[in-house]
Structure formats: C-alpha cells, structure tokens
C-alpha cells in the first residue's frame, strides 16, 4: 500500500521536474487578446465578418452629394410638416413615474436636463492614459514571492474585552487614538490606478457679509470664468463675530464643482499656464491633504487674476474685488502619498515635508 502510494507520487512529480523549464517554442495554442496585434492569420470563420465598421461606408455618388440641400428642400416645402414629425418638446414637469406623459431620460438630447459634451479629447487625459498610468503601475508594484502570505492584520474595529457584563451586544470599538476610520489602501493594480475625480473651486468672501453682496457676485463671475461652470452660493454655517458673520444669515461662499472634460481642461490650464506665473511660488505644500487622497491648495487674489480668462477682461472686474480661492483636487487614491504621486506626475510641484 505504501509502495503504491509513493510510486504514484513519483510518477506525478517526475515529469514535472525533468521537463525543460523553457516554454515550447514550436507551437502555441494559447490565444490572447494581445496576440491580435501580431501577424497571426485570422481563422477562416472570421473572414466573412465585416472588417470595417459602418463609419467607413462607401462614399455616396457625387451627384447625390451635390443635390442634397436640406435647407432649400425645407424652404421649398409648401405645407408644413406635422409637428410630431420634426419636433419633440420634453414636458416641463416631471409628474412621477405613474404619469402617462414621461420626460425623456437626461441622456437624451431632447431632454430638458441634457448636458452636451464632451467637446474635445483633453490632453491631460491623453497624457494620463499614455504615460502616467503605466508609470504609476510600475512604481507602485510590490513584489510578493510565490508562497507569500501577508501577516495577519489586527481588525480595524476592536472588540470589547468582556470584562463587564455591559459589553454584551455593544457595537465594536473604534480604532485607537481617535474615532476616524481611515480609508483602506489596497495594493495598486491595473484597475485601481489613482485618477482625477473632480476639482472643487471654493471661495469664501467675508466682505460679502460685511459690505454688500457685490463681492459675492464678482467672486461668482470670477470663479465661473476660470472654471467654465456655474457656481453655487453657500451661507455661513458658523458664526464669526469679528467679521460679523452669523450662521444661516449671510451668503458668504461660492463653489464650483468640475468633473470630466471641464475638470481636465481646468487642470491643464492651471498647471501649464497659471502655476508657473505665480511669483515666488515653491509649489503645493507637502503637508496638504486630508489623508484620504484629496489635495487642497489656495490661490491668492493676485494669483487668480493670472488666469487667462480673467486677464482678457481684467478691467471689467471692480478693482480689488477678485477673490482668492481654495482648489481641492479629489483623486481616487486612498492615501495622500498616492495622490501626490499622481499629481506630481501630472505636473504639480510639491515642496516641504511630505505628510502621508
């Protein structure tokens, strides 16, 4: 019995050991997606499929192209088309899911809520895709040898030690040294490379409460000009007696939130045009950040005036009323260190002591 068992084991392990470790070079039956780039002949079954999409349609006849004139055709029409044929207006109100007249989805261009875009392929996005992602992936790689088991970590929430009968059924205790549970940082792999998520431009105008609302209007115009987005106004939540600000009474702040294309264009403009022109600027402080991957820095009023959008009609803004602002860059990184890696790869300099 023992002999048969060990010989079976030998039979299983011997061929594995004596096979040459190199891959057989002659034939490779595996087929990856990346193989398609190489010059492998496509199987015969795929040949009857259309190789080009509908975009590469055959060009229409030149006389048909010349004769196609939609404007003159519509002008020459004697009778008007029925309205339903050419125009759909979305209902002005959403009356609930049971109403027979439903507005179209917000992604439908005929919807009232439709926001067109994108209008371009931002270059920051292209740099990120072509250069930054692969570099971050290489930089953040951590090698774990085969057979490696990570050492067990203590649970994030501690349990009670049951020294008292009142500990029964209590929720778990928070971490030591404070109640804040930090974000979990997972190892960075191909599908959680940090990226820009949104940028918030926030400007607190204390003169709006002291003086009059024109400060807030100017701040709103300036922030809208530099950000391509409408601003929201906010009332003060706290009371600042020295500035005579009472909570809930005065609108004191404007904020614009940028995502997608607007965000990327703003970021590129900020890094390439505005930041180098700031006088005696060393960079963003290394201590900045909320330790969950969002970096904030401030711009003084004279720095906000360096944006090309404000420069073009600087005279139109009342003197000394251009606001300063705080710019928060929200990234999908879970720690400030990763966020700083991403932002410095995209061109924001950091200085001083780095705090993670």
């Amino acid at each position, binding site marked *: 019995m023992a002999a048969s068992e060990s010989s079976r084991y030998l039979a299983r392990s011997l061929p594995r050991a004596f096979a040459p470790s190199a891959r057989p070079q002659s034939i490779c039956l595996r087929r990856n997606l990346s193989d398609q780039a190489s010059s492998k002949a496509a199987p015969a079954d795929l040949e009857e499929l259309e190789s080009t999409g509908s975009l590469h349609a055959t060009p229409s006849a030149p006389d048909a192209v010349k004769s196609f004139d939609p404007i003159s055709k519509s002008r020459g029409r004697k009778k008007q088309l029925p309205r339903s044929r050419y125009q759909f207006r979305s209902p002005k109100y959403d009356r609930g899911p049971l109403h027979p007249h439903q507005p179209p989805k917000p992604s439908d261009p005929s919807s009232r809520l439709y926001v067109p875009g994108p209008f371009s392929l931002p270059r920051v996005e292209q740099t990120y895709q072509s250069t930054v992602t692969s570099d971050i992936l290489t930089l953040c790689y951590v090698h774990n*040898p085969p057979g490696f088991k990570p050492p067990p970590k203590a649970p994030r929430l501690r349990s009670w030690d049951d020294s008292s009968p009142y500990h029964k059924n209590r929720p778990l205790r928070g971490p030591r040294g404070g109640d804040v549970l930090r974000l979990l940082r997972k190892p960075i792999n191909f599908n959680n490379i940090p990226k820009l998520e949104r940028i918030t431009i926030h400007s607190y105008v204390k003169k709006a409460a002291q003086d009059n609302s024109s400060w807030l209007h100017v701040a709103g115009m300036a922030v809208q000009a530099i950000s391509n987005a409408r601003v929201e106004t906010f009332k003060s939540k706290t009371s600042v007696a020295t500035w005579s600000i009472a909570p809930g009474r005065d609108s004191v702040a404007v904020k614009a939130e940028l995502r997608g294309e607007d965000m990327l264009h703003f970021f590129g403009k900020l890094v390439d045009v505005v930041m180098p022109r700031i006088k005696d600027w060393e960079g963003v402080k290394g201590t900045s950040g909320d330790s969950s991957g969002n970096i904030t820095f401030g711009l003084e009023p004279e720095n906000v005036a360096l944006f090309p959008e404000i420069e073009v009609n600087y005279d139109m803004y009342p003197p000394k009323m251009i606001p300063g602002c705080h710019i928060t860059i929200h990234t999908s990184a879970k720690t400030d260190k990763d966020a700083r890696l991403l932002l410095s790869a995209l061109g924001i300099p950091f200085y001083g002591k780095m705090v993670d």
Partner: protein
Amino acid sequence: MSSGSNGARRIASVLRPSIAEPQVCRSCHETLVRRNYSSAATQSSTESISTATPAYPVVKPVYTIKAGVLLSRPPQITRDLTPFEKAYYFYQRRLNERLALPFTKYFYFKRGTPADEDWKRKIRERQTPARDIGKYNAYSKEAWNDELLVGSVESEPEHQIEMLVQDAEATVNATSQDTSKKEEIPRPFPRVTEADKANDQKSLNRALQRTLYLLVQSKEGYWRFPNSPIAQDETLREASERTLAQAAGVNMNTWFVGFHPVGHHIYNNKKFGAVDEATSTQHRGEKTFFLKGRIMAGQADLTNNAQNLKDFKWLAREEIEQYVPPHYYSYIKNMLADR
C-alpha cells in the same frame, strides 16, 4: 521493499517544488524566511535530507541573469482623432450652441471700442460667437440644420485651429492703428516633422504621437534592447543603469521608473552546455529582465560603447515587430505601449 519506497519518497521530496528550490530567487527567499518562520523550519529539514544522501546526481539548470533597459520616449503630442470622434465632437459643439447660455458680449467688450466693432462685424459674418463650428446660427429658424454635409472640413481640428488663428489675425489687423502692416500670427508647428518625412529612425523627433523605444544592433546583426549580465553584488536597477551608460553613452537625461522589471526574456541555448561536476549545474541560456526608463533629453551615442553594438534605432511598437525575431517579440510585446 520498504527501503525502495523510502528512496522514492526521498526523490520526490527533493524534486517537489519547495521554496528552497531555485524557483524562488534569493532575495525573495530571504523575505519569505523572515516573514514565515514555519516555512523556514520545513525548508531546513528538506535541505538536510537532500544533502545527506542524493539518490543520483540532480542537474541544476543555470541561467545567466541579465539586466535590460526598455528606454522609451513618451508621446509628445495628442493623437489624431478618429473620424467618429471628429464628427461626435463637432456635433456636440453645435448642440452646445443651442443649449448653453448665450455669450455675454458686454462683459468682455466695452461698447464703442474698436474691439467691440470688430466683434460685431465678425458676428454678422459667422452668426455665432464660436469660431470652430462654421457658419451656424443656433437661434434662427434653420437651427435644426446642424449636420455637416459630405466633404465639409469644419470638423477637422486643423481647420478649426486655422480659423482661430485667422480670427486672431483679423482682430489684430482691424484694431491696430497702423493699417499698412499686416500682422502675422505664427501657426502651430506641423504634427508631422522633417524626421517623419525622411523616416529617420534615429531621430527622437519622429512619430510624435507614439511611444518610441531604443533598440540596438549587435555586431552580429541582431536587434534587441540594450542588456548586459548582472555583475556580482549589483541590483537590477544599478545593472540596468550601467547597461544604458555602457551601451548608449551618458549623454542622455534619463529616469528609471521604479526598481522592478516590467518584462523578461528567456533564451535557451540550442545545445545545453556540459554539466559542471563540482556544482552539478548546467548552463542552459540566459534570462533578461527589463527595467523601464524614460528619456527626457539627449540622444543615444554608440561611439565607444562597451558592448559591441553597431547601430541603434528609436522604434514604435509595430516597427519593433519587424526588427526583432518572433520569439523575442512574443516576450516583449506586452510591455510595449499601444500608443
């Protein structure tokens, strides 16, 4: 009977992939031992068995470990848009013309100034504040006619940039006092350079939209990435930096990305070498590990290189495929960027 079974079990335990075997490199093995005390204990026991009575000589395959450099120049300009992207962006821009708030002219141009007059004249001409969407009035009766006809150039980015520059020139000429002189605003540089036209594959100014990689040619005529054997007590990063300096000179400003290789290449000799009796090893071939580098400035220079190289080229991904042997390409293709 019992001795035979013992012997078989012993051979199997020697051959079983354990972490003491060369499948795990030395530094990894150290980390494993440091982190896992239990595994260290088992490993020492197996070693003692194998050294006690080897059943018959076990030949260890030995490879030359080499450090390679994947030196790349990242894309310098944005890529060309596909026809679909051009059409889509153009359509969205005309749609935006109807849906965005109207342009507040009085905020940018004071009434009665030359700039204001110029703006009014241009608006009359093109009927819209934007310069890049052609002649299109979003508030007219014919605003529905927002699609381009076949053969129109308005959606081409080159045409849009040309319109922007022409508009700036017209503004400068209309508002300047001196009417005799025509101001000329420089156009952006062409996206296709001289090196592209001449197909100068040694130039770094070629194929600005693509990632270019440095390939070197050995005296025998083989194209490959620069590589050299790792010396004693040298890390992979140090070895690859040395390799680059030896192969392509120090006249480059480079940055190595991290300390980990991004790819590897295994070369097996056609005939295995003789078995070294003393260490019971057999030389099988070489393994090359490629570190990624970026070139910021400079150019490769093969004069007085220490590696018997005679030529170099900067090539994009598809061009590399034509130069290197297929076996080599099958190893390296996944570490090359698509763009």
